[in-house]
């Protein structure tokens, strides 16, 4: 169960954002479409608890994110929210497998090699286990980024423009993979994008 209520955020007096309420049940997907500069990333960061709203609330599994202390919020986010960013980031010094193990560690989970293999195989990059992430192709990197987001089986997956830098073929692949991964763990998936190509893939869509 994920719910936002009258979220409002301002960076300064000129740029203020007011966002529509969102409510998702477990296993539901949502596509949030919007043009650049309309506050898509801001909304995503609010929903992930990376930003504190000026007013309004974000609630996941009955926990109001911004009632938590900073450290508790970090740990809550690590356990229950998976994030996919526009450009994939990794810890450069580590291999793909070690990156995933680090994410497990940061969420306070014990190292689970089988889970790592399972996730990578389901994303079709199981053979890239020992590879350094920056040596992967762009499509592989985006899939590896999805692996980071889903490795801890989060309740909520938030994706920020996950397809904007991909070609049509990879774009629909990534969309399908995200949906597959979300349904595999029963997570709610929210994709925020300006990429109109994704419209066909999702029934549930709102436009900012």
């Amino acid at each position, binding site marked *: 169960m994920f719910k936002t209520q009258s979220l409002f955020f301002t960076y300064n007096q000129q740029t203020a954002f007011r966002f529509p309420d969102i409510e998702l049940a477990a296993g539901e997907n949502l596509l949030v479409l919007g043009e650049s500069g309309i506050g898509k*990333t801001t909304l995503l*960061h609010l929903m992930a608890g*990376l930003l504190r709203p000026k007013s309004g609330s974000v609630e996941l599994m009955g926990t109001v994110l911004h009632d938590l202390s900073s450290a508790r919020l970090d740990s809550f986010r*690590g356990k229950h929210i998976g994030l996919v960013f526009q450009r994939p*980031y990794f810890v450069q010094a580590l291999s793909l497998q070690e990156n995933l193990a680090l994410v497990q560690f940061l969420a306070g989970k014990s190292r689970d090699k089988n889970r790592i293999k399972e996730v990578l195989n389901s994303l079709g990059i199981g053979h890239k286990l020992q590879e350094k992430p920056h040596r992967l192709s762009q499509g592989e990197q985006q899939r590896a980024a999805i692996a980071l987001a889903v490795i801890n089986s989060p309740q909520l997956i938030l994706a920020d423009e996950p397809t904007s830098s991909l070609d049509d073929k990879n774009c629909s692949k990534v969309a399908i993979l995200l949906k597959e991964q979300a349904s595999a763990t029963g997570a709610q998936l929210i994709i925020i994008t300006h990429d109109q190509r994704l419209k066909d893939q999702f029934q549930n869509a709102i436009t900012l």
Partner: protein
Amino acid sequence: MNIFRLSLRNMTSRPLSTTLSLVLLTLGVGMIALLLQVSRHIQEQMENNIREIDMVVGAKGSPLQLILSAVYHIDAPTGNISLQEAEQLQKNRLVESGIPLSYGDSYKGYRIVGTNHQYPALYEATVANGRLWQKSFEVAIGATVAKNLSLKIGDTFTGAHGLAEGGETHEDHAYQIVGILGYSNSVLDQLILTATESVWEVHHHEDHEESAHEDHDESAHEDHEESTHEDHEKSAHEDHEESAHGDHEEEMHEAHDESKEITAMLVKFRNPMAMVQLPRLVNENTNMQAAVPAYEISRLFSLMGVGVDTLSTIALVIMAVSGLSVFISLYNALKDRQYEMALMRTYGATRWQLVWLVLQEGLLLTLAGFLLGILFSRLGLWLVSGLMKASYHYEFSGWAWVPEEGWLLAIALAIGLLASLLPAIRVFRINISKTLADA
């Protein structure tokens, strides 16, 4: 994968800057640790050898040279003194004991010292094998001599005139080894001890040739005198000084039978009052010179100290530069890794975990540099020890940890902490949302 392993991986993922930091740290720590160790060893050796020697009496000359030759047996003797005069001093009520030493000959670079049994007793030397000498031409040899020359009881050898190897040998007078001393970690380990009479007899019967005397007065000896004795001796002594050896050799020829001579006497005082009176008494009223080992050695250390201080300063500067290098390395790495840090935060890392990550990298670097530096210093010490053994027959024993090295560790870690502090603060204050949005 945890924070510690991540720190290690971050270090190894930028090998060049890590290596630079490590090399600088190793150099800085290594130099300081080596200096500490070498000066500790020298000081320990020197102080160990002074033991209960309050004053050394010998021929006029440089007091430092007298101490170096009579106590440490590493310099040429200043000349000879009359045994009669020395014995007279021994009768002084302030003198508890006096040990006569006669030296100037050597065997394969190891000095032959004519003395009495009080000398090994002074260093609490034990006889490991055999016994001490009982009559002329019997010798007891130090443990190091026995080991390095593979000598054993019953072996005989002839001494060579002068202290360098290859001097003219006294073929007619063979010494016989009757005892081998145990290790006393003192100068005795490097000496060949015999009765004073042996030395007298060798030189009594020897036909002293001019060339042999020149060996005896090595040129280094004269340089030494000219440069140091002015501070201590009144200028009136200078004339005496320059002709001392010539005079002395002639005396040896003419007056050998009448007045027996020794090279120096190690004196122990009965009470501290003697320290004030006796050296002055000897220097002003006799043909002998008195030198106080404690004073001369502290003077030597203060002379050496200038060099040690300069090197220490250089080493400290290198350490400071290494700190700067660690700082730049961490700071640059952090600039490249801003997104990594933000990413880790979104995956549940707390601020403090990331701060610890950065601090740990700085501390690991400096700790590794410190350990390498200590290793480097021990290697250096081993080399210096080998060098000392080859040229002075002195060996460093023991690889102890000196307390100053604990301070060195603290300084190294402080540098690591300081260098990673600013990067750590930056990580602590990172704005995740802004960092990720600026991608």
